[in-house]
């Protein structure tokens, strides 16, 4: 689904060059749930934005769905969920979900159908006519996931979607997300800085570290596909979490 080879991205700023990503080699296969974890500045969000063609790499190559990121964007082959819900406050939930469909030229009947389906996937039935401010933070983020699902792209890019939510809501949404992933068979790339979240959700965990932003470890998860929340207390889970933590520690410099 996504193939990066020797990918690098350097931002030119007034204080000199900032190396956001260097020599990233990574494969995301169809149907995988890949988490990117690392401290801030490690380039995890930048990598996601490169996949989405929101940033252009300065070296190396990357293909998304077999094409360049720009073509993938033109083909609308991914849905993107941002850190904040980014719902349009003047549109109710239904019309927010309709936004990509209107832009992509879906007919009214098809739109209605898709809105219904995607809101059902995130358990937001009955909130169609509510405006964003009438919903809690967790529900707003769910609406934004429904919006990303509405046009049924195979790839879902999620940039710390639950970062601003409290832990209880987050746990709930994590298990909902796993169910949604199982039901839709999508490929998900998920950025987070929470170790339990990364281990709980992923089939593959990409550990990254900053200055310069790079991949330090790629962990294939051995956890079963079926994951109740209690799995987080099993030795297997803790072993993976330990390896992630070790990877983060190895890449982290404490001299600053």
């Amino acid at each position, binding site marked *: 689904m996504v193939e990066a080879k020797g990918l690098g991205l350097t931002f030119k700023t007034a204080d000199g060059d900032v190396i956001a990503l260097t020599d990233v080699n990574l494969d995301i296969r169809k149907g995988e749930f890949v988490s990117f974890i690392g401290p801030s500045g490690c380039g995890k969000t930048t990598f996601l934005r490169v996949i*989405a*063609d*929101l940033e252009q790499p300065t070296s190396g190559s990357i293909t998304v769905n077999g094409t360049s990121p720009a073509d993938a*964007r*033109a083909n*609308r082959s*991914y*849905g*993107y969920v*941002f*850190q*904040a819900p*980014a719902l*349009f*406050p*003047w*549109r*109710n939930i239904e019309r927010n979900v309709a*936004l*990509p469909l*209107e*832009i*992509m030229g879906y007919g009214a009947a098809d739109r209605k159908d898709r809105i219904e389906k995607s809101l059902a996937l995130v358990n937001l039935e009955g909130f169609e006519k509510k*405006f964003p*401010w009438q919903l809690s933070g967790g529900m707003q983020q769910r609406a934004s996931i429904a919006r990303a699902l509405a046009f049924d792209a195979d790839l879902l890019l999620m940039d710390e979607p639950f970062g601003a939510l409290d832990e209880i809501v987050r746990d709930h949404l994590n298990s909902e997300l796993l169910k949604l992933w199982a039901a839709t068979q999508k490929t998900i790339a998920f950025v987070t800085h929470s170790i339990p979240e990364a281990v709980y959700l992923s089939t593959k965990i990409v550990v990254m570290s900053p200055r310069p932003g790079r991949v330090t470890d790629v962990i294939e998860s051995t956890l079963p596909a079926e994951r109740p929340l209690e799995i987080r207390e099993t030795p297997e889970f803790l072993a993976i979490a330990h390896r992630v933590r070790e990877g983060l520690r190895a890449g982290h410099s404490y001299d600053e």
Partner: protein
Amino acid sequence: MNRPWRDSSTLSVLIVVAALLVVWYVAAILMNWSGVSDFYQRTDVTGVTFGQQFNDVLNQEKPLLPAPHQVASEFWNSTVGQAVTSKRSLVYHGWQTLSATLLGFVMGTVFGIGLAVFIVHNQAMDRSLMPWIIASQTVPILAIAPMVIVVLNAVGISGLIPKALISTYLSFFPVVVGMVKGFRSPESIQLDLMRTYNASRFDVFAKLRWPTALPYLFTSMKVGVAASLVGAIVGELPAGTSNGIGARLLAGSYYGQTVQIWSALFAAALLAGALIAIVGLAERITNTRLGVRP
């Protein structure tokens, strides 16, 4: 919780109005007192009682500062007391000014929005147009208005259009400035979202920039409509026009008709208030439709 003393906005408005009236009366008496005394001296009137002079001060024909009741009765006589087609009617003159104001305001708003669209979508436009737009407003309108009137009159255009053009000149400015700001106010995350959809420039404009800019539009329009009215009145000042509130103000000052000037001023203030209230109402209706948090 019900706190009746907080809901007494009507009462507080009345108190402020009453206080203003008291100040006005005191000022009117102080300013006009010596004038009446001089008049008595010139006409050899003696032995006037204090009460008599007090009464005369408040009912002079051409006072320096007319008292509220004089303005009110002149206002009443020249609105309700006249046929609306009469040249003595403030309703007639008010409409002359209002029609130019409205036409100018609509043209100014459309022109302002159009300029803002160009400026936001084209960097060269931004750099090259903005200085001229700002410079245009530093030229005193009182200097430009007579030229516009005279030049247009020379090519056979007179009446409504020249006045409306001056209104346009004044009212497009707040709209351009406000809408440029408004069109640029979507958050970067919202613009990124539209980019992930590969949305066209038109979609980004229609579905994101325009709705985001609407609150700015209404704020600009409130300033713009008041500026339009000023523009229309200024457009009526140059000699030759005899219609409108501006002409009424000018005639009043020629003949020292202070009471007439003041009642025309009140008509202008009422018009401005009504226009801003209409824009405010349109804003409220739009807000409800856009689901703005009450």
